[in-house]
Structure formats: C-alpha cells, structure tokens
C-alpha cells in the first residue's frame, strides 16, 4: 500500500505529471477506443477507483473534503464526462459520413417541433432536477467559514479562489506581470478571436473530429492540459510555501520554498564563460533577448518550411495566420519555461530588474 502511495506521490510531482499528461492527451486523442462506450466506462472506472483509493488515505481525504475543493473533484469528473460525450458523438458522426450516411444533426435538419410542449417541459424538468441537486448539496456540505479576517496573519499557503489557482500555479514559472496580467489577457483575447482565426467552414452545427482535428486538439490542449490540470495541481499538490507535496504526503513539516534558480544571463556569462556579468544590461541580456526573439520570430519562419503550414497561411492570410502563430507560441512558452525550470533550474530567460521586467 505504502509503496503504491509512494509511487503516486512521485508521479504527481509537476515534471512527471505534466509529461505524463501530455503523453496521455495525445494517446487518447489519437485512438478511437477511449471514445467508445467501453473506453468511457473504463476511464470512469479508473477515475472512481483512484478517488476511492485516494479517499482511503486520511491526509488526502482531508484535502479533498475541504468544501471549496469539492467543486474541483466534481470538475474532473464532469469535464471528463463531457469531453467523452462530445468526442464519442464526433466519432459517431465521422463514421456515418465515411459510410456516406448523414450525421445525426443532418438527418434531423428539417425536423422542427413545437416549443410548447417539447422544449418548455424539458426546461421545467431540468430546472427541478437542478434545484433538487443544489438543495441536497447545500444541506450536506456547509459553506466554509474560517476565523475573522486578520490582515496581519497570512495563512500559509494563501490560495486564490479555485478557478484562478491555475494562474497562481503559473507564478512558479513566470513573473506576476505575465502570469497575472498578460497571460490571462491573452487567453481572453485568444478566445474572443477564435471565430475570426478559424476559417474552416466545416463542422458548423454538428459534432465532428475529423473535419476539425487541429482546431479541436489545440483548444482541448489548452483547456485540459494547461487550464484544468494546473488548477488540480495548484489545489491538491501545493502546500505551505507553494512547495510540492505528493497527494499522500503530509504538509508537516513544511518544506522550504523551491530550489535556488538562476537566470539565463548568469548561467551563460558567469557559469559557462566565467567572465562575470557585463556592465551594460543590453549586452548582459542579449542572449536571452535572442532566445525570446528566436521563439517568436525564428520558430514561425522555421515552421513555414512545412508545406501544410504554408498552405494554412495562404488560406488564412497573413494577419490571421500570424495571430494564430503568436498565440500558439505564447501557449508553447508555458511548457518551455516549465521544462527549463525543472531541468536546468532556469527561471528568467530575460532578467531585467532595471525595467522591472523578467521573462
């Protein structure tokens, strides 16, 4: 038992868990089986077994049962279910199209029903069921209330509300101006821009995967791997000093805050070349600025060697294409900085305290 828990604690550490999640993500979305009934039930079984096993541990049960953490457990299962539902419907439609049959939505396209009673009563029943569910939840779980506010006594860890915990987790890897302002701003901008960037006319008004593979994979990678996963990480495996604690590890004694980190300029000038930091900040940070420039400019140039991407640029036009590329590069910055941190303890690619700017 303890060895299993030890193994899970190991697998839950951010580098391992993140790598695993990427592998699992692409494995799942490459295959058909997970989106069949058998696949869905198997994944549900694994999830429930994991939950039951987790709840058998006192430490983890306390953490999971915290009233404000319950929605996140719910989130995992509910999001899992709806991803499965959408994907299985998409596959079913794709297979119908392949056979030359109409999709489910297509076969009903001219079928209209009266709002009263067909819609109104469904709404009524849904409202009643939701009310019952909410009342039961409220009767079973009291809303949390801690001691009165005390501005002089910061709890450790202090956590943001759960839906922002993913952004708080990003603070481990990014400066606050990025994690707290620019990245959320770009998420909202990216969401707003989706209808204008995606010019694929297919897949409008029905579930399909085959006709929209890249769009769906990109969106789901962001939603599942980067957004939902970081919320779960921030909630369940971050303890005092925002250090990592395995799901079965006690928060006591508290670990000291992270390992020492190093900036790219220091690693290069001091450690590698042994010449000390140059006096001019421009020269000092030149390598970092080059890396960032390469990431945002060089990568697209390199990518355009692929015929498929060149075709996309023709199709979308330059403005749309480069907006998409920029947003993907920002998204890619997340794993990039995470791995740089885990592998080389590298914190800042560009470190410019002179301008309060680090990246």
């Amino acid at each position: 038992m303890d060895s299993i828990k030890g193994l899970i604690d190991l697998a839950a550490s951010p580098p391992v868990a993140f790598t695993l999640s990427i592998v699992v993500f692409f494995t799942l979305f490459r295959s058909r089986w997970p989106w069949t009934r058998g696949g869905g039930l198997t994944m549900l079984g694994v999830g429930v077994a994991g939950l039951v096993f987790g709840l058998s541990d006192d430490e983890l049960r306390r953490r999971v049962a915290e009233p404000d953490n319950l929605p996140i457990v719910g989130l995992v299962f509910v999001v899992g279910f709806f991803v499965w539902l959408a994907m299985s419907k998409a596959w079913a439609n794709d297979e119908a199209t392949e056979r030359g049959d109409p999709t489910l939505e297509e076969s009903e396209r001219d079928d209209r029903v009266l709002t009263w009673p067909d819609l109104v009563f469904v709404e009524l029943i849904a409202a009643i069921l939701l009310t019952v569910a909410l009342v039961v939840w409220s009767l079973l779980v009291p809303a949390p209330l801690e001691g009165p506010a005390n501005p002089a006594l910061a709890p450790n860890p202090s956590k943001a509300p759960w839906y922002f915990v993913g952004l708080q987790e990003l603070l481990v890897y990014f400066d606050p101006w990025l994690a707290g302002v620019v990245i959320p701003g770009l998420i909202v901008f990216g969401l707003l821009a989706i209808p204008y960037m995606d010019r694929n006319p297919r897949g409008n008004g029905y579930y399909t995967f085959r006709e929209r593979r890249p769009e769906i994979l990109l969106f789901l990678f962001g939603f599942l791997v980067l957004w939902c996963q970081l919320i779960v990480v921030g909630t369940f495996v971050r303890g005092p000093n925002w250090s990592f604690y395995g799901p079965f590890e006690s928060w006591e004694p508290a670990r000291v805050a992270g390992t020492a980190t190093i900036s790219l300029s220091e690693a290069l000038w001091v450690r590698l070349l042994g010449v000390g930091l140059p006096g001019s900040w421009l020269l000092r940070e030149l390598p970092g600025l080059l890396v960032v420039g390469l990431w945002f400019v060089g990568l697209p140039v390199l990518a355009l060697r692929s015929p498929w991407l060149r075709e996309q640029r023709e199709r979308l036009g330059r403005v749309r294409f480069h907006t998409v590329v920029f947003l993907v590069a920002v998204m890619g910055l997340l794993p990039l900085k995470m791995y740089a941190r885990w592998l080389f303890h590298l914190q800042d690619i560009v470190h410019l305290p002179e301008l309060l700017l680090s990246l």
Partner: protein
Amino acid sequence: MSWIDRLRRRVTRSQPWRAIFRVGVPTDDRKRALAVLGNVVLHLHPIKVKRSGIRLSYTWCMGGTAFFLFLVLTVTGILLMFYYRPTVEHAYADIVDLREVAAFGVLRELHRWGAHAMVIAVWLHMFRVFMTGSYKPPREFNWNVGVVLLVLTLLLSFTGYLLPWDQLAIWAVTVGSNMASATPFLGHEGPGSELLSLGGTPLIHVGSDARFALIGGRTIAGGTLNRFYVLHCLAIPFIAAWLIAVHFWRVRKDGGISGPM
C-alpha cells in the same frame, strides 16, 4: 360533475383568471403557438425549434443551466442582502448569524455552491459551443458576447469571495489582487511603470496604480469590502443581465440553436 370540476370551471372561467392566462391550457398547435407568443418569458423562444437543437445530447442544456443558476444566485443573493452589511464591523458576524440564527439556514450554501456550479456550467457551455463549431458564421458575435459573460461570471465569483470577510476571503483576494500591481505600465511593480512620470514625480505608485483602483486603498480593508460589494451586488450583475439578454436575442437572430447549414 363533481364539485372539483365545478370549482375548476368556476376558477378558470373567472375574469381575473382569463385576464392572466389568455389561451388556457394549450391543447392544439395554434394554442401552443399562442401560449409561447403571449408569454414574456416563453417568448424568448421561437414557436418551433430544431429537434436536434433541443436534444439534451447536443446542447447538454449547459447554457440553460448557466442561466438558471444565474437566476438562483440572483434570488438567493437578494435574500442574503437582507441580512448582510458590508462593513468591517458587521460583515463577518452577519455571516455567522446567517448560519446560526436566520431562517432557511442554507441560503449561504445555495449561493456559494450555486456560484461554483455556475462557473463550471459556463466553461462546459463554452466547450459545447466550441465542439459543435457554433461560433462559426453567423454566430461570431454571440461567441464574443459569451466570452465577456465568461469573464463577468469569474469576476462575480471573485468579488463575492471577499464578502464573508474571513481569513479565506481576504487572503484569496489578496493573492488575486496583488497581480494587479504587476500590470505593465499601470501597476507600481509592473514593467514600464517607472517610465510614466511627470517632471521626475512618478505617476504610478502604490497609491495610484491598478491595484489601488481595484481594491480602493493600499491594503484590503473596509474600502475594498464596500467596492467589491457594489461590484458584486449591483454593477456586474447589471451588466451580466444586460449581456445575457443580448446573448439570447442573438441566439434567435442568428437562426436559433446551430445546426448543419
């Protein structure tokens, strides 16, 4: 005729009853159409809808769930406002009283769990709309309205988080609002903020930056509580309600729930 039937006829034929319910129980298609047309709430709907559009497995009823939760939160929120005073002196004690003294001791629970559920429902609704490609023309603008609603939903939840004025509340909001001080140019710890100065006097400092504007002071205190209370109970719900109306209007003007073109 039993007395129940007589009574029912009496009631349903009385002048007040017929003044309210013009068509009575709709039993044929004409009356069903009139029932929807003649009712301000039902009139949000068209008279006929696509069968595939109202399939539970198509929309998951997630937009509807988000809206329903918004209504639940409005009602429970108004009831909470009867008890709650947004001052450092009273806020916490009022929340304790809500649990211990007030009738219907689950008001706070309904409001808090409803809020969590609404956040999840809105995410899932967005995910459904994405997966059915319903943001594609002609629904681009309604997707944009939706994204703003998503942001407003999160802000509603965030501003409400402070109101119990317990340790959980102020420290969660501290973590969240500290980010604002790192806003480029407009936060006092943000890159470029030092560039904004007038004759050597910095324009952006702790007492004038984005964080100050958000929390109404240099630290989370009574001013913040008041500010968040007004945002939470008045300003944001008002904008959200307006945008939900626009959202629904556009669903219809864009041709109803999406389906194959």
